[in-house]
């Protein structure tokens, strides 16, 4: 009986979360003039997707997003790993130091966006993909560092002791033992970094231009003065969700694995 009640509850909340997404998917698959009708699936068509790619350069936007998100992860992860490890192992700057890692996250993004824009304009990085990658790497770095710090702390430090007496340098112990052991956590952090960059809108809008527009920017531009092109927006959103769904599966898989299981008593 209790199980039934709890299942009903779960089904209800799942529905609250899922139905809007499913409705978006539905809207993307019916012809534009039926977008607002209340029929569930009157006609099926891929026209909205085709239009998105032919009339709106959505392919470019999608590619931009992938490049920028992947690029920012590639730039941020090595820095986040080493910084997170340093904070986890060497109590150099105390609690205040660790907490200051997150301090930049406390500012509203806008407060950072405008100075960044001025700076980028001076050095000529506006309207470029590398510029966006860099800024995303910088934005995500504190958060990724914070997460990785937690993962590295859960790796028993005796493992490095063992590696170092076995003949490894401190760096060797980090590279050959700590990183592989923390790999699930690192992968999870990388996926999180990807998602953060993938969803980012404000900086992409301010620092970018038509050539560098990412998916969120492109979707926003579909809300024109002639109204919202809801069918195309729905198609775009459906496509934008796709990598997130894949990514969240990954995160789940990595996070349920214990990090150091079997190394200690």
């Amino acid at each position, binding site marked *: 009986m209790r199980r039934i009640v709890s299942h009903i509850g779960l089904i209800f909340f799942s529905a609250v979360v899922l139905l809007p997404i499913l409705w978006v998917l539905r809207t993307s698959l019916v012809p534009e003039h039926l977008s607002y009708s209340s029929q569930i699936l009157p006609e099926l068509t891929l026209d909205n997707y085709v239009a998105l790619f032919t009339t709106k350069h959505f392919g470019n936007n999608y590619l931009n997003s992938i490049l920028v998100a992947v690029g920012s992860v590639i730039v941020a992860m090595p820095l986040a790993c080493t910084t997170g490890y340093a904070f986890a192992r060497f109590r150099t700057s105390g609690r205040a130091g660790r907490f200051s890692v997150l301090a930049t996250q406390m500012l509203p993004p806008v407060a950072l966006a405008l100075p960044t824009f001025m700076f980028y304009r001076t050095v000529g990085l506006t309207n470029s993909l590398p510029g966006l990658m860099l800024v995303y790497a910088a934005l995500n770095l504190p958060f990724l560092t914070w997460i990785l710090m937690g993962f590295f702390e859960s790796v028993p430090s005796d493992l490095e002791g063992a590696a170092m007496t076995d003949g490894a340098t401190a760096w060797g112990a980090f590279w050959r033992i700590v990183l592989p052991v923390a790999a699930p956590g690192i992968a999870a952090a990388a996926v999180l970094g990807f998602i953060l960059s993938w969803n980012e809108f404000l900086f992409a809008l301010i620092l970018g231009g038509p050539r560098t527009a990412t998916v969120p920017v492109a979707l926003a531009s579909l809300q024109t003065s002639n109204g919202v092109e809801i069918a195309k927006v729905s198609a775009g959103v459906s496509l934008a969700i796709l990598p997130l769904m894949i990514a969240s599966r990954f995160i789940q898989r990595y996070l349920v694995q214990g990090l150091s299981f*079997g190394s200690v008593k």
Partner: protein
Amino acid sequence: MASIRLQTVSKAYGSDLYGVKDVDLTIEDGEFICFLGPSGCGKSTTLRMIAGLEDVTDGAIWIGDKDMTRAAPRDRNVAVVFQSYALYPHMSVRQNMEFGLKMRGVSLAQRNDRIDTVSEILGLGPYLDRKPAALSGGQRQRVALGRAMVREPDVFLMDEPLSNLDAKLRAEMRLELIKLHRRLGRTTIFVTHDQVEAMTMGDRICIMRDGHLVQVGKPLEVYANPVDTFVAQFLASPAMNLLDARLEKGLQDEEVVATALGHFPLSADQVSAYDAARGRKLLLGLRPEDIHEADAPGRVAFKAEIVAVEALGTENIVVFNVAGQEFTARLGRHFIPAIGSTVPLYGDPRQMHLFDAETTRAYPRPSSGPVSNKED
């Protein structure tokens, strides 16, 4: 091959908090030394400082003829068996053992050779391709030992390497480790909680308390001449009985130690040895094995009210009460008194120890004490 010398080595955590304080110790090349002490006394910390895994706050550590105080762990050629095992979880048992050999550039043929030998000794053959997660606690502990053994280092540092094995395996491994030590002759520091391990394995034992080195010596020497009540009680199980005592004149004006168990007469050499104890508040120490169920010339008789009997098969550990204080005796296996009954028991005054009640330090026993040295 290497001796180890610790010169007033200290480890401080914070300004006034010491994990290890002023430890002075020289360990000979090829010696097997046991560190024994209660939990938190600094055994692991000392070991880790020797391995280079913990900064030394003060003092110096020499390995061989080199000052290694600030050397990196990998330059010390020591192998550590960690209390926590610290197996590499992403590597198989074979890879765990191979790692240190690879790092030191040992050839493939030699690597396989050593791994085969060691896994044979430790019975790890069937598990070589398993990850540590798929092993039992005892198996993991053996892998940790194996990883150190294949290295054939100058120095073995073992932190309670047998603590997680069952009694039989533990006895076997004890022998294996002693054999290994005979064969390789490597300097070995062996940390343990277990008095039996400490007594039987080490050339010397080194007893620690609260970060200090309390006593170092050959096992039987320490057993015969504990420097204070702590060592006396710690080094054996069941622990030595301690009772309030005082030097007095007996009925015939002879010297006796007056205690709740009666008057313990002093022999001539004991009288001169304990001269300094006159007039002090004392503690008399009598080991459970020096209390007997049978009388013999010179033994002191007392009436014991039996409180508990632990029949171990080979012997009986008997707890008894005299004048409101509880004592323990280790008696023959055929002597099983009824609980609650009162029986005569006999203490052996020649085996007694005398401690100062205030300082807890021992008064040195007359040299004729039952010391038998292992090697010389």
